């Protein structure tokens, strides 16, 4: 069998670089790591077949430097580049440079990225493909009369937004017609002040939406499929924290409708390889196109576990020109998977990032548990990059089984030396709304605002006894010889040590 590629450069770091390298190893393809000055000892360098330094710690001087990465690809003789997520993964110019250098970019074409890169351009393409958007106007409102007409047509509450806007300026949430006129005037003058442009338009306000995304895959022969959805409503500071597949509220019919819409989005952009179409879903389960992510997502493992597919293998196969090895009707979802993103952040300090040296790591294993990690005990998590340490994914026959398996795995998981958000997941996974599948993008803020239930610390006595015993046993000399006699107990050594005092 001809190998798909000879050598793949992974233009990334952390868990995703390791995950791609594992796929390369499995497919008999050599892997090339690149690393910044602070990443020489990183796990992705240890796991690679070759490794090249690309400059200082700042990503702008290393992982974002297309020129350096292409230079390494040339030196190493790599015939493909996997960009992972983040960094250069959605950079059309980089994809174009790869093509020019004769190195296959494992992802969509630069053209497809550009079609999706700008929200307004994406919107035009998608409208043409009949993709649903949040109802409203695209252009500025000419009068209060028009505003009233549109608002009553789409239904209250509505959101007024500055056309030139961003950052919440010129935005107003309006609950009924009585408030519309003053809100419009306020929004227009704020927009004028902020952006020098008073144009304001209306969208239906989606209250407490769910964030649900559809995984799509397209080969280079015109075949495009959807691979189920992911529920990503549990977010903090617009960052996903927990994702699952399938969504607790999506049934077979809704899945098909969302999936077919997502496929139309991909086809309208001439999309190839893995991509994700994000939707907002309102409380009546209407879904609206939000944007397309033109790369592999962090949360792809939940889709892998439920579809039984390996998305990175598929990415590499499709990039090598192979057709998708299955048709839409052969894709089936079985069971349920939930992912927790383990971050280096301090739960006692508003989840502020907590880089530093990992002094200890006890990791979970066993039935239904997958861990994709980018770190190890002894590794110093640098201050320069994303705080994602690892992803812990639980699979089960049912959502409930996936949940309890994850809780069991969290019990087995300890990271010492730096702070992590492990305790957050213990709380989320036991939350009544979570258990009931009642999720929306406000879930996490509501949970955090609620009773913390004062971290359970029932074993202070045990802690006290253990603290004393650790102190006593520290005084026991380590054996010079690492082979310990079966019969020889810690106690005998302690007794001898005591005798010496």
């Amino acid at each position, binding site marked *: 069998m001809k190998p798909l590629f000879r050598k793949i450069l992974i233009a990334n770091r952390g868990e995703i670089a390791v995950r791609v390298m594992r796929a390369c190893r499995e497919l008999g393809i050599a892997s090339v790591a690149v690393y910044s000055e602070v990443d020489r000892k990183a796990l992705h360098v240890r796991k690679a077949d070759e490794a090249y330094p690309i400059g200082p710690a700042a990503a702008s001087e290393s992982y974002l430097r297309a020129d350096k990465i292409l230079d390494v690809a040339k030196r190493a003789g790599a015939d493909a580049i996997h960009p992972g997520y983040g960094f250069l993964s959605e950079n059309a110019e980089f994809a174009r440079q790869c093509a020019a250098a004769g190195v296959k970019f494992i992802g969509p074409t630069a053209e497809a990225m550009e079609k999706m890169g700008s929200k307004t351009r994406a919107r035009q393409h998608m409208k043409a493909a009949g993709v649903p958007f949040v109802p409203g106007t695209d252009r500025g409102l000419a009068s209060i009369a028009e505003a009233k007409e549109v608002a009553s047509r789409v239904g209250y509450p509505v959101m007024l937004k500055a056309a030139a806007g961003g950052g919440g300026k010129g935005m107003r949430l309006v609950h009924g017609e009585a408030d519309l006129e003053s809100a419009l005037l306020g929004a227009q003058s704020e927009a004028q002040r902020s952006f020098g442009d008073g144009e304001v338009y209306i969208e239906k306000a989606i209250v407490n939406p769910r964030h649900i995304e559809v995984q799509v895959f397209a080969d280079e022969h015109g075949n495009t499929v959807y691979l189920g959805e992911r529920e990503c409503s549990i977010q903090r500071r617009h960052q996903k924290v927990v994702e699952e597949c399938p969504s607790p509220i999506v049934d077979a019919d809704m899945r098909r409708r969302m999936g077919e819409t997502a496929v139309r989005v991909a086809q309208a952009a001439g999309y190839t390889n893995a991509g994700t179409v994000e939707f907002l879903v309102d409380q009546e389960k209407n879904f609206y196109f939000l944007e397309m992510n033109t790369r592999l997502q962090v949360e792809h493992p939940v889709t892998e576990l439920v579809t039984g597919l390996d998305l990175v293998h598929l990415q590499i196969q499709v990039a090598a020109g192979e057709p998708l090895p299955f048709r839409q009707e052969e894709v089936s979802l079985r069971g349920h998977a939930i992912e927790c993103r383990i971050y*280096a952040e*301090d739960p006692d*300090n508003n989840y*502020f*990032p*907590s*880089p*530093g040296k990992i*002094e*200890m790591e*006890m990791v979970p294993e066993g039935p239904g548990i997958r861990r994709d990690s980018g770190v190890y005990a002894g590794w*110093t998590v640098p*201050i*320069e*990059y*994303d*705080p994602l340490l690892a992803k812990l994914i639980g699979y089960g026959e049912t959502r409930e089984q996936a949940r309890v398996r994850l809780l069991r795995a*969290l*019990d087995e998981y*300890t990271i*010492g*030396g*730096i*702070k992590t958000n*492990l*305790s957050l997941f*213990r709380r989320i996974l036991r939350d009544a709304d979570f258990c009931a599948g009642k999720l929306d993008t406000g879930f996490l803020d509501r949970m955090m605002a609620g009773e913390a239930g004062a*971290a*359970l*610390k*029932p*074993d*202070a*006595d*045990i*802690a*006290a*006894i*253990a*603290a*004393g*015993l*650790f*102190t*006593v*046993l520290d005084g026991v000399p380590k054996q010079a010889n690492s082979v310990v006699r079966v019969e020889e*107990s*810690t*106690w005998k050594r*302690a*007794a001898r040590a*005591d005798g010496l005092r």
Partner: protein
Amino acid sequence: MTYEILIDGKKSKLELQLIEQGFRCVLDGREVPVDAQIVAPDILSLVIGENGRRSFEVTRERMNDETFVWVGNARYAVEVRDPRARRTAAASAGDAAGPKKLKAPMPGKVVKVMVAVGQEVEAGQGVIVIEAMKMQNELKSPKQGVVTKITAVEGTNVNSGDVLVVVE
């Protein structure tokens, strides 16, 4: 051997006496049957009780100059005072009256020093901003007083536990 042990600040008295099969353990006057084994560095397997022998895995974590133990999912700050070293321990226990050091709680880059030597500060007043992983964190004065020393320099990296400012 008797220890004074602080768990999350709460004091206990622990007596440990070496006997044939391990230790005799008395916690705050109550005898607790304990079977303890070190299974790996900083990991202790405890079986507690006679009937209803509960099994615990206790992990010790050292962070900067603090020590914690994990019992299951819960993390306890611990301080062990050896009676033989009592004077030292007592002497080193800082109180509100002395100088207080503000230490970096995590590695990062000092992006702003908001005070000057000699300046009066309130307890909880922001004095230093550290950036890590693209987020900024304002560190606050540990007490009311006067800034007597600033070792943090804007634009430089610091490690977890580094002293940044001293307030007296």
